[in-house]
Each structure stands twice: as C-alpha cells, then as structure tokens.
C-alpha cells in the first residue's frame, strides 16, 4: 500500500503550499475566516434577528428580545466555517486509459494525484475534505473532516483505488447527491464519459442541493487528438466484449468532430447549470494544472 508521500511528491507539495484556495462563493464556516458562509448557525458574530417560525430550534430564540418586545425572534450569527469539500473520484474502467505521452500515468492515476493535491491543499486551509470513490456504485464514502490526520486517511483510501468496471455516472451522482447532507463544494474528478443529458440531470441534482460543483475533467492527450496511425483494435476498458479493428487514420477527423460536439454539449450544460468545468490533460503536471485553475478561479472572483 503506497503511503502518502508516494502519492504526493515533494515537488507537488512545495508548489501547492504557496497557493491559496479561494472558493468562488462564500460557503458556510468560520474557522479560518477566509471563507464566509451564508449559513447561519452557532457562532460568535451576530448577523440578524428574524421572526420565529414553527419548527425553529427553541434554543435559538432571543429571550432578551422576547422580553422587550413580547415577540419571538430568532438570533442569527454569521458562521465562519471550513469549506466542506467532497472529492468525487471516478474509478471506472475508462479512467484506466494509459497513453504514451503522460509519463505512464493513467487518467485514474492522474485523478488520484489531483485529488491528493486538492485534499492536501484544503486540509492545509483547515477546510474539511471528504472523499467518494465510485464506479457503477459508490465504492467508499469518507465524510468531510478538517483534521490534519484526516489527510492520511484519504490518501490511504485513494492509493488503494484501482480502475475497473463500467460507469453509470448519472446514477451514481444521484446517489451521492442524496448522501451528501450539507451543502458544500463538490469536486468531481472524472472523464464524464457517458450520456451528457443524463449526466446533466445528475449534476443539476447537485446544484439543486445547492452544492458548488467543480468538475475536473481528466483527458488523456490521445483522446484529444487521436494520434493513431496503424491498424488498431480498440478494446473497451469497461466492456471487454466491445472490440473494433479499424484504421484510425480514417476515423480521426470524424472522431475529433464527435469529440468536439461532446465537449461543446458538456460545456453548454455546465454553464447552464453554473458548474465550473476544468479540463485536465494527463501530460500536464498535476500541480501545474491545479495552479492554473486556481489562478483562473481567483481572477474570476
């Protein structure tokens, strides 16, 4: 079993340590003060009074104000809290693709590294990080924690993952959406291969639960430019019965067209749902990709 240093190289750590993760929007939490949470809860900084409605916790009633006004008000505080971030790592078979131009990294490896970087970065900021690994179904769910020791837990879990089996992203996302109780940041590390419409519905489910969704779409360079020349039998990583012997050169253009269509569709769907879609290519260094994204993210904000 690989230990945490194996997963996260020293270079990666040093590169990430200077960066600050700034969530696009203020989410709940208060601990480090950088992230403003719109959630009101038990906190020190008063925010507002609001009239009591049945169902509110009786403990939140401002009895002093009741004494003055004879009306029931609820006292609300601004809550400074950690970002509750859940990493969704796709462990399906299609993530097992290992191109020749990515230093022997499969997409899955790359996703694992990226997930490790992100979790290390966020735990550094005392944000809570959770992890969901899935293929056809949820493999493992680690709820978000902000403790530094939690990192090792996540790392261990990540290192243990091997790609395999088919994916049905939409189904799994629905399940996950229903499992994550509190709103937070959902970071999906996946290739998102599947039916876009259903996928969008599932992502909309996240948005419906008012999660902030960031998708790191992992691409192998081979998948983006289809560089194959000689006769090739393409065997599906997810379904061993699917095999096609073709001359890839003849298919390249059509493939690229299809790919573009797919990505456009995905981009359109994400922007409609206000989901940030970040394509990552496995021949880019993991930290570079993250740093680039964080820079974009800060500028957008």
């Amino acid at each position, binding site marked *: 079993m690989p230990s945490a240093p194996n997963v996260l190289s020293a270079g990666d750590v040093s590169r990430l340590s200077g960066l600050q993760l700034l969530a696009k929007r203020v989410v709940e939490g208060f601990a480090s003060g950088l992230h403003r949470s719109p959630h009101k809860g038990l906190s020190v900084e008063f925010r507002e009074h609001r009239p009591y409605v049945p169902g509110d916790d009786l403990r939140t009633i401002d009895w002093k104000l009741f004494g003055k006004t004879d009306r029931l008000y609820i006292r609300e505080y601004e809550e400074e809290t950690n970002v509750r971030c859940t990493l969704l790592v796709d462990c399906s078979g299609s993530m*097992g693709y290992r191109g020749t131009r990515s230093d022997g990294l499969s997409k899955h490896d790359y996703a694992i590294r990226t997930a490790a970087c992100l979790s290390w970065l966020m735990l550094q900021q005392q944000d809570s990080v959770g992890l969901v690994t899935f293929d056809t179904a949820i493999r493992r769910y680690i709820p978000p924690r902000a403790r530094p020791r939690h990192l090792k837990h996540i790392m261990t879990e990540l290192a243990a993952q091997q790609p395999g089996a088919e994916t049905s992203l939409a189904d799994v996302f629905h399940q996950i959406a229903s499992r994550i109780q509190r709103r937070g940041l959902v970071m999906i590390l996946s290739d998102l291969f599947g039916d876009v419409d259903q996928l969008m519905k599932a992502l909309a489910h996240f948005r419906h639960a008012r999660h902030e969704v960031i998708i790191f779409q992992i691409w192998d360079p081979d998948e983006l430019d289809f560089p194959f020349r000689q006769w090739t039998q393409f065997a599906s990583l997810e379904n061993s019965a699917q095999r*096609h012997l073709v001359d890839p050169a003849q298919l390249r253009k059509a*493939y690229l*067209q299809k790919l573009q269509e797919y990505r456009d569709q995905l981009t359109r769907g994400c922007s409609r749902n206000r989901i940030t879609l970040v394509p990552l290519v496995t021949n880019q260094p993991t930290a570079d990709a993250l740093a680039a994204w964080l820079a974009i993210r800060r500028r957008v904000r």
Partner: protein
Amino acid sequence: MSLLNPLLAIGAGALLIPLLIHIFNRSRFRTIEWGAMHLLESVISQNRRRLRIDQLILLLIRCLIPAVLAFCLARPVLTGGGLLGDAPVALAVVLDNSYSMEAADPGGTRFNGAVESACRVIGELPRGSQVAVVLTGGRPTPLFDAPLADLQTVIRRLRQQKPGLGASDIPGSLELAADLLESMPAVRRQMLVLSDYQPADWSTLSGGPAAALQKRLQSSDIPTQLLLLAGTPLQPDARPDNITVESLQLPQQPIGVGQEFSVQARLKSYSGRDLDAASVALTLDGQPVSTVQTALKSGGTAEVLFRCRSDVAGSHVLTVAVTADDLLPTDNQRSAVIDLLDTVRVLLIDGDPGSQPLQSETDYLAVALTPWTFGRVPLTDLLQTQVIPPAQLTEAALQTARVVVLANVPRLTDPQTEWLTAWVRGGGSLLISAGNRLDIEWHRTKLWNDGAGLLPSAWGELRGAGDAGQAATPAPAAPASPAGPRTARIVSQRSEHPALAFFNDPANGDLSTAEIRRWHVLTATAATETQAGTATAAILDSGDPLLLERRLGDGVVLQLATAVDTDWSDLPLRPFYVPLMQQLVATLAVQIQPPRNLSAGTAAVALFYPPTAADADPAVAAKAAATAPPPPQNTPTDTATPLPAVTLVDPLGARSTLPSRVQGRWLAAETTATQRPGIYLMTLPDGRPAHFAVQTDAAESDLTLLDPQQQQDLAQQLNAVLLTSAEDWLEADRRQRHGQEIWPWVLAGLLLLMCLEVVLQQRFAGVTA
C-alpha cells in the same frame, strides 16, 4: 505496345507490397485499451460500410502505384501494329538530277539539299539495310549495278553526283525503283523520292500511271512505303526568275567549208520581269562571233538570228548564251554542233556521153553540183565532180568517192556490179537515174534481183508522152502507155526527207513547176519496204513515185524515176535544179554520218576511216586532219591489227576510252552514256575532233513547282507520305521502328495516382461523424 526493359516489368509484382502491408497491418494490429469508446463507437458504426469501400479504393490505388512505377521503368513503347525495330530496310532513293535541280535554293542548290536529305535518311538506316539509287534525269538510271549494303559508299557516291541531266522520266524512274525494290530482300521497303516536283515531270504520272504504281507498290508481298520529300517551295506568289535559250536551229542542208549559214536561237523567259536589252552572244568553238541585244518580255519568247561561217572543216561547237542573273544559270546557254563538210567527191558515171555542151547525160548535173567552179566565181564548192564513162568504173575509183551517180547507165560488168554493191553496203551513197539507154532487163536481173540487188525497185512501165525524137531506143519491155497521162508534175507536199525538206519553204523554189514527160513506174511494194528499208521521198501527181530511197548495209541508194538531163523532163531548166541536186547529193554524202545533235540518252556514234600506217606519226595525223580524210590503205576487216580506240570527254570533263568497231568501210565509235546534256568530244585516232551536242527538253527550265496543295493531291493519289524535311521523316520513322516511348505519360500517371492517393486519404479521413 512493347517494353524496352521487360525485366523491370517484373517489378509490377511490387503491387503485392501494399497488399501485403494491408494484410500485415490488419493482422499485426495494435490493441489499445480504449476509454472513450462511446465517442469512437458511434463514429465506427456510422461509417463502417463507407470505410470498407474507401479502404478498398485506397488499397487499389496503393497497389497500382508500384505496378505503374514498374511499368514506367520498363519503358513501354507504343507501336501501331507490328514493331519493326532495327530490321533491315530496302530503300530505293529516287533522286531527281535534272538540270532544274541546279536552281539556287536557300541552302545552296535544290540538288544539294536533296542529296543531303537522302544522306541523312541513309545514314540513319538500320544495319544490314540495302540501298538502291535511281537517277531520274533523262533516262531512269540506277546509280549502282546492284543495291548496296555499304551505306557509307552510297553516301559518298551520292555526294559525288552532279545534277544537270535532262527532264526527269518520273513514271519510268518509279517503276525502275519498284523493280529494284522487289529484288532486294528486306522486311520493309521504302521508296524515297527527292525531286523539285516540276509540273512538267509529274503531270505524266497523274491518273492511270499513279493508280497503277500505287497498286503495284501496295500489292507486293511486302508493301512499299512511298515517301515524297519536297524541298523548300518557292514563295507561292513569286514567279521563279529564269531565262533560257530554248532551242538552236541550224540549217538542215549540209554546210561546206567557207559557206555562210544561219543560226536561229529562241529565247524564252520564265521570269516575272521584262528585259529591255538581253545580251545574246554566239560563240564558235569558244571564239565570240557576234553579240546582239534583244528585248524579252516577261513570259515571252524572242528569236535571234546569227550568221556565221568557218574555214575549217570538221565539227564545230556553236554556243548561244544569254546574259542574265537568274535562278538557274545552267540553261542560259545552249550549244549545237555543226559538221562542216570538206570537199565531197562525186563520181558521175555517164551512160549517155555526148560531144556537144549539155548534150551528155551528166552535163547539167555536173554544172548544178559545182556552180561556182562552172561560173568561175571565187567561192568554194562543196562538191567536186568527176565524170567517167561506165567502163572506167574501177574499185580504186570508187574508194575515193563519197557519192556515185549512175546516170542513164545501160549496164555494168559483173565485177563492177560487185564492187559497187560492196561499196554501197560499206557506206557509199549511190544515185541512179533513168534514161533511154537503160538495159531494163539487165537492171532487173542484176541490179534489182528481186530485192537482193542495189535498186530499191525494178524499173517498171515507161509512162508519159515523152519526146519521140529523143527516145532513140525505147525499152521494148516498157512501151509508153497511150492510156497514161502525158506529163506529170511533182506533188508539192511537205517532205520529211532531209534533201527535200529544204523546199518546204516556198521561197526556196517550187518543185511542182517542173514538167516530167517520161518516167518509169517504180513500185515500192510493201515487201520490199520492210525487207530493204525502202522509202518514197517524192511522188508525182500521177501517183507514181519519183524518188525512192533504200538503205542498204551502211550505205544508201536513191533511185530517180526520170532522167537527170532535159531528155525526159525540164527539171534541169528550172531554177531549183541546182539546189535540188546539191541537196540530194550532199545529203547522200553526209547521210552516212550519224547525227551530231542528239537528244539525251541516244547513242552518239562517230564514223571515221581506219588510220593508215602514216597516222602513227602525230604530225602526219595532224596534217591529215587538216586536209581531206585519207583514203584507207588497209581494209578494216584486217583483224590482225588491233582496232584503234577513241577518247571521249563528257560534259563534266571525265575522260574515257571507247573501243571502235568495224562498220562497213568505216570504223565506228559509239557511246550511249549521253544522259547528261552538253558537249561530248570524241577525239578520233587521226586527231580530228568529233563533237556531239546533247540536248534535253527545255521544259525543265520552267522552275514553277507543284504548289503544296498539288503536292498533297499527288501524295494522296500515290498513297504516299509527303515529307517536308528529312528530320521529320527520321522522327516519324524512329517512332515507327521503335514505337513511341510513353514512359513520361506513365510517369505523369504515376504522380497523378500518388497525388490521388494523398488526396483520397485526406478526404476519407474526413468521413462524416
């Protein structure tokens, strides 16, 4: 279609390579565990069928590329039908060497251009080819005895040829070339005609002869390819600039030493410009005689008359030259040969001598033959007469005479008859006239002898009223016919006989004015005509012949049906009696001499006396040449002494030696190599020259050529290929022999295929999603 490098065509097997690569690729494919299958699968399923076809097309093109490359490297050659390669060719070159080919051309003369073209073609012939050359000028003549395979020799000999011969006999030349071709073994036969295509030469070919020739050339077992090579045509609108002396007319009658004679020259202009004063000069043996100026219109003719005389006997060359700067200088002069007679000895044998002047039978005749001597005029008579009675006729007396006249001779002795017969057969000229003293019976048996004797005809019935008093002893066998006409006159008609042709001009006298009172009926039967060459020279208006001529051996016999004195006619009283007798006797004297003005190709014959022993000394020979020909001392039949040879110089200056042969009393030297117009000079053993002027058709001087359209028509008639230059032909021939290499086209096709492959590959890669 054939391949020059057939081995390389095996390279076409390389088409297996793309096929193998294809199969190899398909079998040695790479397997990729692919993630984005949902993208790939839809693309594959949508294009599966099209991909398959595209692959097939691409594979086909890729297989074609090495195959086409191999085909290209094998150097394919396109051949129409059978490819002959370097198979030997039988080539007959028909070369026009008529003098019109001497016309100036941009590249020298037309002839030079034609020869160079022929040499180019011959130089490119394959090994083992044979060449025959036919020269068309004058008479079609093969240049070589047999077709030659040594092409270098052919080229060398061709370059030595000179034009200048007479008009071309094109049909004959083509037939001769076809004959030669048929004798030559080869796979291909070609006939290359190099000519200037003068309409006069070629018009004889149009129609039937052309069709026959074409049929002949095509129907042979190996068809002959006929090639017409036309030189550079003149500018179509420009008239070729040429002026020619078309003809020279010399007097018909024999001319003696010191006699003045006229030379009529006829000039013709083929030029497009008028000449106001063309300078025409006459030279005699190279010495200028006179020069006149004459105007010559464009396309017109002009006649110039010269008068001339010479005091030297023998042959003389008369040359009329016109000074003009034209395309063809050769025909600006024309020569003719005149043989001036020395004194001709005439032996008059008088059968009816008389003591009074003009009483004897030959008195009128002697006067008529030597008028100047008789009239004591200091002029030279052509003839010299000697009158003897029949008894004095000896063999020796005959030897010195050129002409013998038997005038009213009753009979001769048998030896005399034999001598006379031998003398005539050996080339003597004999005139026999009738008279009242003839022994008709003796004449019939000895001299007529049923056609075997000297007489052209037996003396037949005596006709006419006559003068009874004069007829002392009328022949019992031939009494005057009371039923016949009393007198007769000579029919005035145009005569072909050289002696009587003089009187074709009425200014020279009218023969029909004479009244013939008595005459013998001479029967020129058909049998005798054919057997003995008898011809009627003049006839009477009674229908009876007056003058019969018979060639006997090398001699000639003239038989006059009436007398030469005034007994039977008033001929001697007529003004034309002198010229008539002069003409008759002089013509008889020179009739033996073969003509000196010849048309090209006819034999030039010189007759001369056998040299005597004294002729061995050159000085004596020269003296003999200046004086009369020496009487022969030895008989030419003496075979012990070798016959002398005669030197011949032809117009080109080439010297050759001709053997002589015995002909009657003479020796004869003969050459038939007179194709080339000009002056031939024979130097006889006694040192005397004998010139021959060989003339040819003046139509050759018309330098107008067939225009391109007519040339096309001609080529079409002959089913011939019309060439404009030797290079054109060589190129076409090379293609015909070796075919046309098409590798550049194949290479282009290959490049096209390669481009197509790239384009298709690009295009197929862009199949719809």
